[in-house]
Structures are given as structure tokens and as C-alpha cells.
């Protein structure tokens, strides 16, 4: 369970990509725009939102896989700015990817895949030490020595995801960005991998940023949940709180849209079905990004971006009308 100490703080994070519009013109795509939040040590923060809203980009920018356009990432009290702080940070923070099929090199054996970060960071002295560590890591994720000399393509999706996780654990990380780690898996396998994330957190005291679009999975695994829309964070609260009392109009419709695996609940559920599509992030609306689909939108919503404010203990929302409509 999470302690009260802040491990990671993200302040006004911005990640813009220059998109070539032809004729030597380019336009900034604001994939992540002014996002702030923090994660406590030992906590799981879930990050949800529809495809393209910027979830993966938040994860990658935090780890400086992209150089952020603006803002601050502060880890364990230290700002990640210099080369040294980044090198130090990379040993403590890592990422697990969505696609267990493409993120592993098919020509490498499992033990080489898992050992690669050990080699890169020179985390062993003898071959024996390397071997032992690889077996230990594989043990964490429920694989055994028999699997070590086989190739990644010989494994099922769930097993490949385990290999990816064993590899991520190689550097002894404290913080892991998990980007849709179970989305590609069948439900029966999903549960195995979700439990493994839970167990590893208990055993190794890990902190997760858990990105997923399956809201029931996120609710299950997260202590708190953040909702993004078009590059902005629109709501952040305790998992149960946001589930029972979402305050932002977008979160409200998103949560009501989840098909509940229970016929009576599903039949009784009053869905708030949104009209229209998500706008392109290249042509994001002025003011509140959600206003083109929001049933409460007013003129003020087009004029300024609502600030991300605490409206109840630990419950943050970015909506001009949050008080009136709830």
C-alpha cells in the first residue's frame, strides 16, 4: 500500500510535436499540454482516456524518452534536468509496453532479453552473477530455467508480457510506467498478469503509472485514477471516488459508457452517450477541450481553459461549471 511520501511529481508537463503541413509549414501537435500530478511511493496511479489523448506520451515524456517541450519532472525530490540526474533516474524508472509481440526481439533468447538491461548498465561482475540474476527475475514473473534458452516467439502473449516485465525489473526499478500491459491479452490471461503486477508491488515496493483503456481493469489495480482528454488532464481522484462520483462531464460519460459484465446492471445503466467524435489534436477547440461534445458547454467554455482545481479532498477537476452541474 502507498505511503504518504511523494515519489514523482510532474509539473506543467508539455510535449508538442511539430507536424509537417507541407510547403515548409509546420504546426505544433499538443500531445500533452500542461499536465500536473504527483504519485506517492508504493501507489498505483491509473491513467485513462481514449486513444490519442496523450497517455503514452505522458509516460514517455516522464521517462524522457522524448525531451519534454516544457515543464518539470521531479523524482524523489530531485528535478530531472542534467544528464547525470537523467542517468540516475533511468536506473530507477522504466517502462513496460503494450504489445508483447513487437516489443521483444524474436531472435534473442529469453535470458538474453532479460539480461540486456543488466549488460547495458553493467549490473554484474561475473557470468554466474548474471545468470543467477536472470533466473531470479524470471522467477518473479512465474517463468523457470527451462524457458531461459528459448526464443520469444515460442511463447504465448501472456508469457511474452511476463518476459517484458522480467526485463523491466532487471534494473531494480522503483517506478514503472505500464503502458497498456494487459490490453493485448485474453481475459483469462489478463487476470494472471494483473495479479502478478499486484504481487510484485507488494514484494518489491514498486510504484506504478498504469495506463489502460479498460476502465474495469484500471479500477481494480489503481489507488487513484487520472482521466485525460485531448492532451489535458481533466479529473483526478481516488479510484472508488471517481467511479462512484465522477465530476467532470467527460469522465461521467466515459464511465457510464463502460459495458458492465452483469446483465441487470447493464440493462439498468443510464448511459450518457456522447455525440460526435474526438477532435483532432491538431485542431483542438479553444478553451475547454471537451466543449464540442459537452452537453453543459456555455460561452465561457470556449473562451478560457478551465484550471485544474481541487474541488474536494484529493479530487481535482478542470471544468468551469463543475459546481453548478454536480
Amino acid at each position, binding site marked *: 500500500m502507498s505511503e504518504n511520501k511523494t515519489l514523482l511529481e510532474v509539473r506543467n508537463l508539455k510535449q508538442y510535436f511539430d507536424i509537417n503541413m507541407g510547403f515548409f509549414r509546420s504546426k505544433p501537435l499538443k500531445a500533452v499540454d500542461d499536465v500536473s500530478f504527483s504519485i506517492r511511493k508504493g501507489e498505483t496511479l491509473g491513467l485513462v482516456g481514449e486513444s490519442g489523448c496523450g497517455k503514452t506520451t505522458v509516460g514517455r515524456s516522464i521517462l524522457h524518452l522524448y525531451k519534454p517541450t516544457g515543464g518539470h519532472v521531479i523524482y524523489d525530490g530531485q528535478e530531472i534536468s542534467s544528464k547525470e540526474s537523467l542517468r540516475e533516474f533511468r536506473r530507477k524508472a522504466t517502462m513496460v509496453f503494450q504489445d508483447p509481440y513487437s516489443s521483444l526481439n524474436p531472435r534473442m533468447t529469453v535470458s538474453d532479453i532479460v539480461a540486456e538491461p543488466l549488460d547495458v548498465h553493467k549490473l554484474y561482475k561475473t557470468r554466474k552473477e548474471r545468470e543467477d540474476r536472470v533466473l531470479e527475475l524470471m522467477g518473479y514473473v512465474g517463468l523457470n530455467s527451462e524457458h531461459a534458452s528459448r526464443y520469444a516467439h515460442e511463447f504465448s502473449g501472456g508469457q511474452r508480457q511476463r518476459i517484458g516485465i522480467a526485463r523491466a525489473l532487471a534494473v531494480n526499478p522503483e517506478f514503472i510506467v505500464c503502458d497498456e500491459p494487459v490490453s493485448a491479452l*485474453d481475459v*483469462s490471461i*489478463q487476470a494472471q498478469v*494483473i*495479479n502478478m503486477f499486484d504481487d510484485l508491488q507488494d514484494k518489491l515496493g514498486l510504484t506504478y503509472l498504469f495506463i489502460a483503456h479498460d476502465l474495469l481493469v484500471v479500477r481494480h489495480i489503481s489507488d487513484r485514477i487520472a482521466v485525460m482528454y485531448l492532451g489535458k488532464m481533466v479529473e483526478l481522484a481516488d479510484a472508488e471516488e471517481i467511479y462512484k462520483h465522477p465530476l467532470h462531464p467527460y469522465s461521467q460519460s466515459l464511465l457510464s459508457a463502460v459495458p*458492465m*459484465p452483469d446483465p441487470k*446492471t*447493464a440493462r439498468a445503466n443510464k448511459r450518457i452517450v456522447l*455525440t460526435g467524435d474526438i477532435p483532432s489534436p491538431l485542431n483542438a477547440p479553444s478553451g475547454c477541450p471537451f466543449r464540442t461534445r459537452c452537453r453543459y458547454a456555455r460561452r465561457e467554455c470556449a473562451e478560457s481553459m478551465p484550471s485544474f482545481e481541487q474541488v474536494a479532498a484529493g479530487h481535482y477537476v478542470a471544468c468551469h461549471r463543475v459546481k453548478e452541474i454536480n
Partner: protein
Amino acid sequence: MALLEVKDLRTSFFTDAGEVKAVDGISFNLDHGKVLGIVGESGSGKSVTAYSIMQILAPTGRIVGGSVKLEGQELVGADESTLRHMRGNKISIIFQDPMTSLNPTYTVGHQLMEAIMLHTKRNRRQARERALEMLRLVNVNDPEKRMKQYPYEHSGGMRQRIMIAMALACEPDILIADEPTTALDVTIQAQILELMQDLQKKLGMAIIMITHDLGVVAQMCDEIIVMYAGGICERGTADAIFYHPHHEYTKGLLRSIPRDENNGQRLQPITGTPIDLLNMPKGCPFAPRCDHAMKICLTERPEEMRMNDEQISRCWMNVKDGIDAGNITVERSASHV
């Protein structure tokens, strides 16, 4: 007589590695205006079931047994003209990725009108009218403009609407939807599911909804088939399947997904690895992963057993007493749910 009667359907693919029994003896009925869900994990045979009904299998695939009757007429072995009439006029199908069935080089309007003219006696002008009407029906705004655009100019949700418009243009009796919302975001999924429910009520067609998402079947379906390794585990009303499952695989599935019931608790995964159709066990295909497998499960495949008016199951657990006593008498279900 049921609208669609599928009996002991068997479909195999003949590959270099051997015969893959993708669908291995499944039976069900579908009545007018009903929504039937087919759930199961990847590779369990959901899509192949659908493609077998439509007879649009890959060249290596063949229906090797059983029967598919539409309004009493046998489709297995029927001639090409009967099948052509069935596809499009009687049964339509939509896929997970609309781009696989929309041609990128023609406008949406062109493709819609072609489909309408192929299957009905409308002329160009009437087909155009019908196409516009269909686009309005699926809530595409500014249909005149959309007609002139190419598929890539539309979002995923919009393309799926267009596919639905195309599938419904000839007023089929049955719409087969193979993971129609899997590639979509949840708010767009909600739009499409609501649209399908509306249209189903308005037009009275039957729907076969194929998905791996138990939430989608809970929301949409009157009846549900749970598939595993090419066979039916269990078939019944939505309430029966969710509230009184009679097959260990169904029970396992319900325990392994996060729900209100197990909120805050540890999930209970189904152990083991998914089935390999080239190495099928002899008895119950689920036995290698089943916590309750008995001796008989390893040697004999369970037959369909009727549980009650609402449900059939293929699991030896249901006749446990009979097995313990050593004499197993299993009645084949006379009628289908």
C-alpha cells in the same frame, strides 16, 4: 421453425501442420428479432462459426459436417446462387475493422449504392435515395457530403456506422457483427452499441454479436453462447449464463474479470495456457486448465446436457452423482435454447 438452425456444425482448416478443427460440433437456434452473443477467448472459433454460416471461409477451410438451415433451407452444400441470395439479402456481416470491407479507392456513396443495386431491384436514383436514407438511419450527419468522401476521410466510429448502413441497406433478417466495437474507444463503442440496439428494435432483425467482452454481451444479448476450443461450453439466456453458470470455464471467466462482485479482491485467473487446436486433449477440451477435472473429463467429451428451460451445458460436473456411481447416462438435449 427457427429463423436459423445450426446443427453439429464442423469446420476445419487443412494446414501443413495438420487438420485444425476450428469449429467442432456446435448447435444453436436463432429466432427472429433475437440478439445472440458468442463469447470466448481468442482462437475459440467465434469468427469461424460466423464465416461458416456465411460460407466465406479462407481457401484452406471447409465445412466438414453438420447443417446450417435458414428458414428451413439447407445452406451447407447449396449452390452459389442460393448463397449469393442469402448473403446480403438475408444475412449480412460486419467486421472488427471496417477498412477490410470498405474499398479505399471508391467513395462511400459509390460503395453503398453498388451494394444496394446488387441486392435489390433499385435503379441508380433510387439506390442513391436509399443510401442517403441509410446514412441518416445510422446517424451520420451531413450524409450528402459523406457520400462523396473516401473511407480514409472518416474516423473509425464513422466507418463502422457506414459499414452498418451498408449491411442493413438490404434489410437482412440476420446481422452478424464480428467484434464490431473492439477497435473503438469506449464512448464511440457506446454510440455504436446504442445504434445497433435502436436499429434492432426498429427493423426487428436478429443479431449474432461476436465478442470477447463479457460487458458487451451482458448489455446487448438475449442469449449467450460460451465457446472454448471450437465447441460450445454452455448456451443459455444472458441471466442464466451470468447468474447461474453451469460450466467450469464460464465460472472461471466470470471470476477472472474485475466486476462489482470481486471489487477489492484478488482476481482468480484461469490457470494454464490457451488451447492448442493441433494438440487437443481427448476428453473435455478444458480439462487441462480445469480445477475440477475428474477422471471422466480426461477420457470422454461431455455431451450437451439440458439444465433447465433456459440453459444447456457440456460439463461433467452437472452429472457428478451419476459419474461417481459409475454409470453415466446423458440425455442429448432434444431441443435447443
